[in-house]
């Protein structure tokens, strides 16, 4: 059996509904209407030990709900989850010692005290031995470059510094699985790269299985090969990054900037989307070569700059949605 195995997972939320106006407000005192939302709808997947998997989908797709069920915080309505032999919800207290969690939008560090004090507390929460703690901490300090601000109260740290501390905090007890919910949200380019490199490193060295959610395509490209896409609670895609790109990213956009254009050359499979005095934006399909276009245009004008835009993840998911008629 796989390391993590999820079968026919379902979770429905009951949300109270209320009409506007005084009459409905009064009525809702006695009788409440509810709407049922299938946050997670019959999802199954398997993950092997040491894999890095990106779990993506637009806001409200059911990502966090799935992660929360995998962490043992929420109880599934139906279906089974098995992680390394544990049932996360039922075995919560024993199970959570095996996992580390980072929710990018929330903080697990104590605000008023230095990160190091929070680490000390986590040491006693997870009953980590002195030796293991010192080794792990040394490692983390080196890899994440924490040394300079370990003694600064967390409230005075920058977001990037804080996020590095958050990640360190979630790995002190050497978990076998790491859940990262939008770990790079709001980070600057340098911090993003640092965080990514660290995740790669920890996965390689300690064989930590990583499940991450992100809206940042570059995160996913840098870290993982496998992608699970969900939308409206349903699994839409499970496979490689390349696969999803060739399947759904059909078009590229080419922007050409020039001094003066004599006439628009005729190129097959290309379409002019926007045009003004010294700029033109074309849409071409994936089979048309960009060099061919540049070649043709260079005969008609002095090209100053060329930009090629590929579909980003959001475009791809958007297409995926259209494709599946959701």
């Amino acid at each position: 059996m796989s390391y993590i195995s999820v079968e026919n997972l379902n979770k429905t939320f009951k949300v109270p509904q209320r009409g506007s106006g005084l009459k409905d407000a009064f009525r809702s005192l006695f009788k409440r209407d509810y709407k049922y939302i299938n946050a997670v709808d019959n999802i199954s997947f398997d993950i092997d030990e040491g894999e890095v998997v990106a779990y993506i989908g637009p806001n409200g797709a059911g990502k966090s709900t799935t992660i929360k069920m995998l962490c043992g915080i929420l109880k599934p309505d139906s279906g089974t989850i098995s992680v390394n032999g544990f049932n996360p919800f039922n075995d919560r207290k024993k199970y959570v010692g095996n996992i580390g969690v980072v929710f990018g939008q929330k903080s697990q560090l104590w605000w008023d005290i230095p990160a190091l004090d929070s680490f000390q507390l986590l040491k006693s929460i997870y009953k980590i031995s002195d030796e293991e703690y010192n080794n792990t901490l040394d490692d983390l300090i080196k890899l994440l470059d924490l040394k300079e601000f370990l003694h600064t109260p967390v409230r005075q740290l920058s977001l990037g510094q804080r996020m590095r501390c958050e990640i360190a905090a979630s790995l002190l007890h050497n978990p076998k699985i790491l859940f990262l919910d939008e770990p790079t949200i709001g980070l600057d380019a340098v911090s993003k790269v640092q965080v990514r490199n660290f995740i790669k490193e920890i996965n390689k060295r300690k064989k930590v299985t990583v499940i991450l959610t992100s809206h940042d395509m570059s995160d996913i490209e840098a870290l993982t090969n496998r992608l699970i896409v969900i939308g409206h609670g349903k699994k839409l895609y499970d496979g490689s990054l390349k696969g999803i790109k060739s399947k759904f990213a059909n078009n590229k956009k080419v922007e050409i900037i020039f001094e003066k254009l004599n006439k628009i050359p005729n190129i097959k499979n290309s379409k002019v989307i926007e045009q003004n005095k010294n700029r033109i934006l074309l849409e071409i399909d994936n089979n048309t070569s960009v060099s061919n276009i540049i070649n043709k245009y260079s005969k008609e004008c002095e090209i100053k700059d060329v930009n090629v835009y590929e579909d980003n993840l959001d475009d791809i998911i958007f297409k995926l949605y259209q494709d599946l008629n959701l």
Partner: protein
Amino acid sequence: MKYLSYLKLELLSNLQYRSAALAGIATQFFWGALLVCVYTAFYSHTSIDSINYDQLITYVWLNQAFFALIYIRNKDKDIFASIRTGTVAYELCRPYDLYIWWYVKLLSKKYAATLLRFLPIIVVALFLPKPYNLSLPISLLAFILFLISMFLGSLVVCAINLIAHFLTFFTMHDKGIFSILNSIAELLAGFDLPIPLLPTILIMVSEYLPFRLIGDLPFRIYSGNIDTLYALKSIGLQIIWIIVLLIIGHLIMKKALKKVVIQGG
């Protein structure tokens, strides 16, 4: 132990609020002095069997000195914020009992606040001119029983307080629950008037509720207003109430957490 480490950490981070403590001490002195004046005037015209003047003045000063410990209406911003913003998700990913964890948090806040405040009030009140001063405990035994019941009282008040926190998730707004605590619980806890000065019917009602076990009991043990046997019985009652309140709170938390379904993300 993890809960003790947490207690220590929260204590240390709360001990930094020194100017708040200074303001608290000033307020408590003012109130204490005011009440001493009122009761002095009151007792100069009448005498009351259930509690004598010296016991009452001692009660007043202890009440002021340990006000931070027995105060029922604490609202812990962090607990509310944790649930509202969903940070509680983190706490549920840890191998500890969340209810006990938050209970320890409330306790440590109380202890930090009390440690910063009680000593100056006690010392000054002890050296005030007679008869306006805080008397020494009636006996060594009474003093030991006072310490035990004061500690248990702090456990009782935090258990009540934590339940109030979770009840607010069913009422949408925190004002209601805490106003009820404010008026009813504080009356029956002897905050407004010491229990012996309350009307008979209210004294009877207070016997069946845990509120008088917070401060009223230890203060009256200290001054000898309650005899040893009754004190021991009441200490037993404190322990039972702590267990009952913790179990009830635990159940309410479970329901409340199911209801909030961990917001966001």
